[in-house]
């Protein structure tokens, strides 16, 4: 295996970016990331992006966004209709093949033109489930009640997760829900989708993120302290909700084992947990305890940029390692209803 590291990261998240098109708000992020490492687009060995046209209803937005990279003469590129963490995975595989040393990864989402809560119904089983249009919060609430009634987690614990997210987000300029709130006050909130309260559900954001990957000595040239990807794996649970155990993140358990999360201490964990319940399941799936700082950015509860939140988790963990604030971290990304699919990435400084 080649040593591959995150060497640059930029992000933008706001509650809504109505005045700019996707390509208009992504180009400055792309330029900043290239400036961080002093590379031009033509010096990137591979480019991979993640987005979904369903979010803004903008057909072929990903094609327009490729324009923003400066793709002439034609570049080697690919796109996934998934969170950018999976674009990063594809780039990592491409780098493992050995014929390139750098890769440019970005993803973005502009959910504000539509109703994300409803748009996500289109990812469900088209015969039995999607025609009923269950909304995103409703499905998560079904899992949440199972967790509570089976004693997997308590409402108090969920409120503490939500409160910690807001506490951490208060110092993250990229977070959206940044006002502090105690667990006791959160428990007084009225349900959005019983048993989920407003603080248990993600704060929706528009935005995007860019990551530059580099291999071996090239990474050391480009970055003072690269964040090395020591393990990365992704797994998917069944599509059919009825056959899944919704009180555990089975795919994350396997991905975490394969990525080697438990092989050493974990200083920080950036978990792509849109709901407080998702965070409780992921902490358990990864075997984390109170020695790990969970979601120092505030996580996806504080700003959930659909299609970029997972990539941002990797970037957040990597930038804390590069800044010397942590030596070893883990980041996750999720996709599908109720933590169906999970990617786990272990990062280390040297």
């Amino acid at each position: 295996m080649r040593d591959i590291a995150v060497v640059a990261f930029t992000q933008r998240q706001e509650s809504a970016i109505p005045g700019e098109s996707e390509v208009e708000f992504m180009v400055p992020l792309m330029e900043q990331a290239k400036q961080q490492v002093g590379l031009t687009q033509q010096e990137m060995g591979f480019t991979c992006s993640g987005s979904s046209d369903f979010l803004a209803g903008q057909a072929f937005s990903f094609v327009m966004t490729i324009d923003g990279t400066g793709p002439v003469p034609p570049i080697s590129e690919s796109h996934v209709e998934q969170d950018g963490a999976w674009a990063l995975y594809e780039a990592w595989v491409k780098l493992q093949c050995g014929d390139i040393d750098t890769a440019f990864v970005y993803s973005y989402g502009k959910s504000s033109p539509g109703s994300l809560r409803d748009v996500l119904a289109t990812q469900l089983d088209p015969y039995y489930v999607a025609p009923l249009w269950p909304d995103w919060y409703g499905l998560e609430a079904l899992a949440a009640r199972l967790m509570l009634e089976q004693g997997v987690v308590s409402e108090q614990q969920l409120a503490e997760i939500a409160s910690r997210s807001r506490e951490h987000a208060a110092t993250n300029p990229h977070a959206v829900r940044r006002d502090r709130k105690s667990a006791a006050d959160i428990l007084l909130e009225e349900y959005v989708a019983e048993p989920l309260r407003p603080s248990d559900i993600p704060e929706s954001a528009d935005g995007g993120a860019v990551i530059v990957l580099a291999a071996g000595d090239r990474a050391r040239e480009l970055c003072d302290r690269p964040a090395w990807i020591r393990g990365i794996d992704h797994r998917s649970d069944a599509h059919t909700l009825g056959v899944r155990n919704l009180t555990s993140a089975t795919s994350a358990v396997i991905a975490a084992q394969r990525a080697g999360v438990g092989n050493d201490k974990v200083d920080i964990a950036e978990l792509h947990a849109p709901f407080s319940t998702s965070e409780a399941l992921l902490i358990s799936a990864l075997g984390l305890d109170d020695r790990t700082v969970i979601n120092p950015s505030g996580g996806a509860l504080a700003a959930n940029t659909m299609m970029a939140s997972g990539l941002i988790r990797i970037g957040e963990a990597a930038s804390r390692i590069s800044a010397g604030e942590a030596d070893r971290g883990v980041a996750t990304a999720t996709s599908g209803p109720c933590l169906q699919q999970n990617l786990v990435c272990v990062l280390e400084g040297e």
Partner: protein
Amino acid sequence: MAEEVLTAPLVLEYPFTRTTGPIIGSFLTGLREGVILGVKRSDGSVLCPPLEYDPDTSEELSELVPVQQTGTVITWTWNGAPRPQQPFSRPFAWAMILLDGAGTPMLHAVLVDGPEAMSTGMRVRVEWSSERQGHISDIAGFVPDDGAASTATEVPAEVEEVRSVRTPIRMEYTYTPGRSLSQYLRAMSEKRILGDRCPTTGQVFVPPRGVSPMTGTITDEMVELPDTGYVESFNVTRVPIKMRPDLTPPYVSAWIVLDGASVGFMGLVMNIEPEAVRIGMRVRAVWKPDNELEMSAQNILGWEPTGEDDEVVTDYERIGRVDQGGSQ
């Protein structure tokens, strides 16, 4: 720059018709006939609704068996503000319901007066739709079990099997065009056409997208283009398009290169016989009457010949080059 953000309603509809295959088709046929079928897994348990395969083992499944029309709520949540496409228009519960005889729960709606009437473990029965067509919505939803459940378990022989299902998708958005297209649309309402210039290559792109598609550089210079140009390429359409009843075949779609632009953009050629249209033909925009102008590219009804001498087009490769400016 502090102009109001332009918005427009945008509705996307996908009128999908999906083929079902034999297992899903049998289940939907059963629903139409008032029977609920599951499929047996190798351990003898019943997957309901049925799939062609076992999601755990990927084993192929084929033995359909009926399940009861009563069941138990294993988890639920309250939906206080139903959306138009959901099962009921008044508030209802979403629930995972384990039907008697089934080994896996199914998602559906439970109609009760309020969340206080819901509980895990409560018994419910199927409420059928009055008109059934072989669709998951043939089950209108579930209601508390009052002993009135049908006990039908036999799908009559000789009924027509469901082979496809309509699953229309409709999503509503509030579209915002972004910075550059907003300027373009505002100019359109004054019969002006804006492009943007690549600061590196000098090329002019229309419509403007705010970024040079050649270099990825942000374009900060808007360029006002004349409403004249030439036909770079064209086709004659002789088949009507359902979504555009306003277009009567034959009509000519063309790639029009405006004077001063580096790329063409799409338009209709009008006021000339299709057979007379040719590459290089000089054209000018035909605008809507002034009192009908909107912030829309549809203000240009089409392009008509100017009668000038044809453009001699020799430089078809200008798009891929970054060493020169506009086309003229």
